[in-house]
């Protein structure tokens, strides 16, 4: 079981309200991702749930019982830290068995569980090594192993992949997703990488300055961003947000159009000059300075062979235009 409910949880460090008040329900077995720009309070929120920070006010309810005042060890949660936080003087085996030893489990049972975790995580051959003798990816797996042996109610991950190189990150991302599918345990995952958020999450929580901007499935957030912040944050390359007369034509203060929803047409639309073109093979990313709407990003097919200085006409797909009011909120 691992249902976590936050009731107007607030956290302030001295004068500063880092989390002004958050309400959130995380269902049992869900993979929830917290995303947001740097400094928005993702780690703080996670640490509040873990019990590593005291809640200023509000309540954290885990599986129906109030856990706000419980120490971390009593909450039945396991955390994987960004720096892995392995114990450097212990072997991999001892690291993985440490929580079991602290729980007073007998050695035979603990060894059995550690071996099982090691075989799931492909660590069997490294059990007698120290963390210093492992690669980044292997250390990450040890940290996960140390978390899963306890069979926690939920896993908390704080940017676990940010120290890994791009290829390994994709790999570990898939491993963690698979782990979630086989364990079916609640996982809360903090990242500022929105590709991780989009690919892994059942539910994404977009945070901005300690506030929840929107909660929803990845596709919900992509298709129906509630406001300009979410619209600009989810999706890569970023959505183009256009103000002025073009927006007024659609009866909005701001309109948003994703780079992949702009088409290169022979005439009509917005005319402009290509500033930058990046050919990735499968896609071509263009930065176009238009006369009507300023500089916008375009994601065109790989076959588009435009270069710097070429003139193009761009047309947005009419049904993919997002409209936002003066307060930044989406218009129905």
């Amino acid at each position, binding site marked *: 079981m691992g249902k976590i409910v936050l009731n107007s949880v607030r956290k302030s460090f001295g004068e500063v309200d880092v989390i002004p008040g958050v309400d959130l329900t995380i269902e049992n077995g869900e993979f929830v991702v917290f995303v947001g720009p740097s400094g928005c309070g993702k780690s703080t929120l996670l640490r509040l749930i873990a*019990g590593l920070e005291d809640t200023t006010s509000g309540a954290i309810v885990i599986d129906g019982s109030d856990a706000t005042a419980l120490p971390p060890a009593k909450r039945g949660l396991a955390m994987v830290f960004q720096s892995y936080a392995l*114990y450097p003087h212990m072997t991999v085996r001892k690291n993985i068995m440490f929580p079991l030893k602290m729980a007073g489990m007998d050695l035979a049972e603990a060894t059995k569980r550690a071996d099982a975790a090691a075989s799931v995580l492909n660590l069997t051959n490294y059990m007698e090594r120290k963390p*210093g003798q492992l690669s980044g990816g292997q250390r990450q797996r040890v940290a996960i192993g140390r978390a899963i042996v306890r069979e926690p109610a939920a896993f908390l991950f704080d940017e676990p992949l940010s120290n890994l190189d791009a290829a390994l990150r994709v790999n570990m991302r898939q491993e963690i997703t698979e782990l979630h599918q086989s364990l079916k345990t609640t996982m809360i995952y903090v990242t500022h990488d929105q590709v991780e958020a989009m690919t892994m999450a059942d539910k994404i929580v977009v945070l901005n300055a300690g506030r929840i901007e929107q909660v929803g499935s990845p596709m919900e957030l992509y298709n129906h961003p509630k406001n300009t912040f979410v619209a600009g944050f989810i999706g890569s390359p970023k959505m183009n947000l256009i103000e002025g007369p073009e927006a007024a034509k659609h009866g909005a203060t701001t309109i948003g159009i994703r780079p992949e929803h702009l088409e290169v047409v022979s005439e009509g639309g917005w005319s402009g000059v290509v500033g930058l073109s990046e050919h990735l093979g499968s896609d071509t990313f263009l930065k176009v300075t238009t006369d009507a709407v300023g500089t916008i990003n375009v994601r065109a097919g790989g076959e588009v062979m435009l270069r710097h200085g070429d003139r193009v006409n761009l047309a947005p797909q009419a049904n993919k235009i997002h409209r936002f009011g003066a307060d930044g909120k989406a218009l129905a």
Partner: protein
Amino acid sequence: MATQSSRATARLMVAPSVIVLFIWMIVPLALTLWFAFRIYRLLSPDRNGWAGFSNFLWYFNSPDFWLAISNTLVLVGGVLAITIVFGVLIALLIDQPVWGQGPLRILVISPFFVMPPVAASVWENLFMHPQNGLLAAGAIGLGMQPILFLEQYPMSSVIFIVSWEWLPFATLIFLTALQSLSSEQLEAAEMDGASALSRFRYIVMPHMTRAITVVVLIQTIFLLGIFGEIFTTTQGGPGSASTTLPYMIYKQAVIAKDIGRAAAGGIIAVILANIVAFFLMRSMGKHLDT
């Protein structure tokens, strides 16, 4: 320094300093060795001729010698035990975020800046003195007899004074070690269900072993030669109760004016230091490797 050539270069680069240090060390040692086998008494005219091993034998036959050896080892061991236990505890304490942390730390460190004879003098006259001392005043205030520290417990008193001087050093090293412990490791242990005591035992202490090794090795070197504190307070007495090897050598050199014997004592001290160093390195040296 991983490759063959970089190692060779490194050796070449450090060679000059190694050579200078070696000469710096070997010349006095050779002179001491020379005098140790000579008859060289400042108070008598026969100052030449070989003494054979008689200078050394004098020590082994002297009833004070074994006492001095054991006093030396007791002093080193006692001070090490006190400074390490209390050093770790004080370091843990002043590592906590408290109001006035900066000045507090400076206060804790300050005994280290007091010169040994001054420190010993302060303790002897202001604290341990049976008439004027603060401790005596306290004892009298409680209706008890003042304790004659330097007469009845000379070794313990000397150990206490030396520990007071060296505690800041140990505390400082332990404090820096504590500060280099990542807080995430402690938090991870907390999440893993470790109590404060378990965190200390399984996370903090293993992290500190290297610092403790450094403190033991450095302090041992200095403590084997402790002299000023004894000279200022007990003068090796009562009788020979607090005479250590360095103090015994001093008595031969300065009081008896027998340079040959003093040199032989010096050689014995060097051998003793090497024996101690050998056992220390064997038992603790592995903690210095990464």
